[in-house]
């Protein structure tokens, strides 16, 4: 046990030594990367959200995040705020209705070809549907439709399940337990907002990426 601890401490020092050997780049980079791994840290929420969202878009693989910042950022902030307002009493989250999430998913459904055609031109964009072979054409179209449906139902189901569980628990154990479930609900809502925005970005990135790379 003690030797194990010493070993790990030695590894840690060794790691630090390597880092300082490279100057303070990695020392400055390392905690930042851990912070960004959490994605929902307090500093990112209280700071300028545009900076964090832009960095995330760039991390996913879009070279000019400013072009997509308004669309993806609006999606993220809307779904996040819709989930986080759940701490207000008497509030029903708008994303708990299938109409809202279907509207958001249809926005993504149209944004993908718009960005793709703007970035690559209409012929190379449409040629993407016939890759890798022509007989994959119906499958690619069906995958576009089904991922839109999945996007809508995922957000709707997650938010709706929270309110249904809260309603059931209120009738079973009304004193303290719904508070815990409500706080778990806030976490799930934030994660789902992040996932919705990330999936929209991934779809846009797949549509705009040129295949010659």
């Amino acid at each position, binding site marked *: 046990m003690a030797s194990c601890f010493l070993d790990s401490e030695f590894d840690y020092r060794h790691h630090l030594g390597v880092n300082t050997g490279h100057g303070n780049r990695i020392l400055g980079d*390392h905690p930042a*990367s*851990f912070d*960004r*791994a*959490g*994605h929902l840290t307090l500093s990112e929420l209280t700071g300028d959200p545009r900076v964090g969202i832009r960095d*995330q878009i760039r*991390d*996913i693989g879009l070279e000019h995040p400013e072009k997509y910042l308004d669309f993806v950022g609006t999606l993220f902030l809307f779904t996040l705020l819709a989930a986080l307002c759940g701490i207000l009493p008497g509030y029903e989250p708008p994303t708990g209705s299938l109409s809202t999430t279907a509207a958001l998913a249809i926005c993504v459904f149209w944004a993908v070809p718009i960005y793709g055609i703007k970035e690559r031109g209409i012929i190379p964009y449409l040629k993407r549907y016939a890759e890798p072979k022509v007989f994959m054409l119906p499958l690619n179209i069906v995958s576009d439709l089904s991922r839109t449906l*999945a996007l809508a*139902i*995922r957000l*709707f*189901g*997650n938010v*709706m*399940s929270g309110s*249904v569980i809260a309603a059931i628990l209120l009738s079973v154990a009304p004193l303290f337990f719904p508070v815990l479930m409500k706080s778990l609900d806030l976490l799930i809502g934030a*994660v*789902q907002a*992040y*996932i919705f925005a*990330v*999936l929209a970005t*991934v779809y846009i990135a797949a549509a705009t990426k040129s295949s010659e790379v």
Partner: protein
Amino acid sequence: MDNIGLIALVSLVTAGFTMCIGSIAPAIGEGRAISSALASLAQQPDASSTITRTLFVGLAMIESLGIYCFVISMILIFANPFWNFVVSRAGH
């Protein structure tokens, strides 16, 4: 048993089985995904940002299967079209 009781029974039992069976497979999948993500996080802490993001997206994909089952069981319990049909017909 009359039609209303039969439809209620089948709907409730099917909703229960939907949730039961439909949460087993996503649970196994998410467990495997998280365990391999933890293993690669321990091997490469520098890539933690990419690994965590991919993990979240993958978990959302897997979890949506369970969410589909939940939506189906909610439809069976609260918005069952056959139930509404039979009740409306029985009203006449």
